[in-house]
């Protein structure tokens, strides 16, 4: 279902002319501006001067090197989550399971990380990441298989699996001997061994290598999607499944691959959050990042380079928003309202105008019906 519309969305990404870029960027910026305006009204209703609130937000995001390093830290899961969703969008699937993958990845990293294996840090870290990526990949294979071969809508299945992952984490960190820190005030795992923790890059902050890795992953996928045969197949399946089928591309396998790849990136993101920032596995440690990743991918239009910009925009909103809620007393949940408001306006303003490619996907059962529709059209 979703793929049909996502193709329409994608039409705006096709961008053959500079004018189109200007129009779509302009629309996005207009949407963001309207979203910020609407949020300002909400902030005003909640009894705070919106100008003061936004000033505090800006200051909290860019006011000092520490503040900016905070933005970078918050950008890390958004970069990885955003790119994970984006590569799915390229094949026409909405991989909304980032939250679950992050939990599973963090579990993988923690399982390997809590034990002092006597390894040098580089090796231990790599081992943790490997465990995270493999576990998350296996986890992602479930919705991937269901979507590609059984036609189960990936949005529903991944969101259901998110809840399963959350409860699995709850159990691991509150009950399991050797992993859970049982006397703790809040369900959490034992601390990771020193050799499994990522280094801090800047004294006095919590800046870890995650954001730079995130940018690197985005760049890698930019090249993979745009300049390799694999990427070409991906884009072809996403934008014109019929042509792809005709050309002999195996769209089922490709869709499965993209969901699993997204899951692996999500797992990596969870591992980095654990090893670079929290140093333990906490219950409920990723609330909301899953949806925010979808917002990042949407704002970026699925384009890996734009993911970097979008992730930083949201990270600045989140980091600054935290400061804003401390300094001005706006509710801390206002953060996600601002993000969602911007997104709603971006969606509302950015109407899909071009209809160059016709929708349709051939993997699930909608294929038969939609193909008829296209033939009629």
């Amino acid at each position, binding site marked *: *279902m*979703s793929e*049909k*519309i*996502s193709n*329409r*969305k994608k039409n705006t990404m096709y961008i053959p002319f500079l004018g189109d870029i200007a129009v779509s960027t302009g629309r996005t910026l207009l949407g963001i501006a309207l979203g910020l305006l609407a949020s300002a009204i909400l902030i005003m209703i*909640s009894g705070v001067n919106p100008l003061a609130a936004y000033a505090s937000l800006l200051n909290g995001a860019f006011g000092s090197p520490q503040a900016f390093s905070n933005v970078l830290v918050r950008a890390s899961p958004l970069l990885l989550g955003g790119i994970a969703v984006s590569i799915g969008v390229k094949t026409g699937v*909405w991989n*909304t399971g980032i939250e679950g993958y992050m939990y599973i990845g963090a579990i993988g990293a923690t399982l390997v990380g809590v034990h002092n294996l006597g390894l040098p840090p580089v090796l231990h870290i790599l081992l943790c990441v490997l465990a995270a990526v493999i576990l998350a990949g296996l986890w992602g294979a479930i919705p991937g298989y*269901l979507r590609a071969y*059984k*036609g*189960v*809508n990936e*949005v*529903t*299945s991944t*969101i*259901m*699996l998110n*809840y*399963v992952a959350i*409860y*699995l984490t*709850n*159990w691991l960190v*509150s*009950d399991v001997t050797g992993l859970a820190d049982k006397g703790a005030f809040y369900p959490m795992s034992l601390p990771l061994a020193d050799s499994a923790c990522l280094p801090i890059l800047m004294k006095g902050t919590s800046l870890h290598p995650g954001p730079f890795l995130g940018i690197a992953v985005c760049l890698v996928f930019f090249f993979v999607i745009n300049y390799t045969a694999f990427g070409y197949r991906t884009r072809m399946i996403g934008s014109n499944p019929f042509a792809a089928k005709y050309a002999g591309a195996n769209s089922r396998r490709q869709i499965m691959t993209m969901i699993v790849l997204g899951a692996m990136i999500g797992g990596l993101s969870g591992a980095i959050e654990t090893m670079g920032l929290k140093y333990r596995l906490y219950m409920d440690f990723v*609330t*909301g990042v899953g*949806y*925010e990743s*979808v*917002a990042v991918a*949407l704002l970026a239009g699925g384009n890996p380079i734009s993911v970097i910009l979008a992730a930083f925009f949201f990270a600045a909103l989140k980091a600054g928003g935290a400061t804003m809620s401390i300094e001005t007393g706006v*509710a801390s*949940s*206002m953060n*996600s*309202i601002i*993000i*969602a408001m911007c*997104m*709603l306006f971006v*969606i*509302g303003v*950015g*109407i*899909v105008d071009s*209809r160059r490619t016709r*929708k349709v996907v051939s993997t699930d*059962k*909608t294929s038969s*019906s*939609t193909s*008829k*529709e296209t033939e*009629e*059209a």
Partner: protein
Amino acid sequence: MSFSVIIDWLQATLRWSAPLIVVAFGEVFAERAGVINMGIEGIMMFGALTGVMGAFYFNSLWVALLITVLVGLVLGILVSFLTISRRANQVVTGLMMNMICLGATDTIFSLMPESRQTRVQTFPVIFPKVMQNIPVIGPLFFAQPISTWIALVIPFIGGYIMYRTRWGLNIRAVGDNPQSCATAGISVIRLKYQAVILSGIFAALGGCVLTLAEVGYFSAGGMTGGRGFIVMAACVVGGWDPIRTSLVCLIFGAADAAQLRMQSANSIIPYQFFQMLPYLVTIVALTLMVKKSRVPKTWGAAYDPKDV
């Protein structure tokens, strides 16, 4: 497992299915009209909050219901505007709606600390004590709040509207072939709006049932716990038929009720695994049934009047 445990479980099944069935009532029509309203999760959350707020501040269930319907109406209009008039991606619109509703309910709830600890008035049980004491059917049916009874009746109303009225026929036709409908002089856009707004209102009411049927308070941070998504799965599994979808909701409700009971049963299996149960049941049901359902032909696709 003793007999009384089973009765208790069945009773809870009805109670936990009621919100799902109410939400599904509207969602079935929206999806039949071709629009997947994924925002029902968030709208449900909003309804859960407004129900409690109405009951707390005005001490009247009627006011609570009125506010809830209004909120559902407004959010339904928002979703339909974005997905129908602006032809936005339905998945994305829904997810962003959920995000905004989660944030908004948390914010509003944090502004009213006084209602936090109080348990508000809940939907009344209308049958006399004598009837409630009848073995088996007494606790099972007559001790249920009025909301459960409504949930038991509306699927049949939904079935009647869907298959026996002109409006229902039009809704089904619009979802299957909007172009022909437009040719036949039916206003596709208006019907889609009506269906999606209906789903918004009933999603809010379903949230209201969730809080006001039994618990009587709201809790921040995602109180609906994915029930909106479960309803969407129920629509697929139930083949977008009001009655069958409600039966599927009963199954999911049963899983929910069983989960709560097993959690406190002190078994060797950790309770978190029982908490996963409703979600796992949903995935399994989807996998088994998805091929058998007949999808509305333009399910999830935007309708462009210029398309021929």
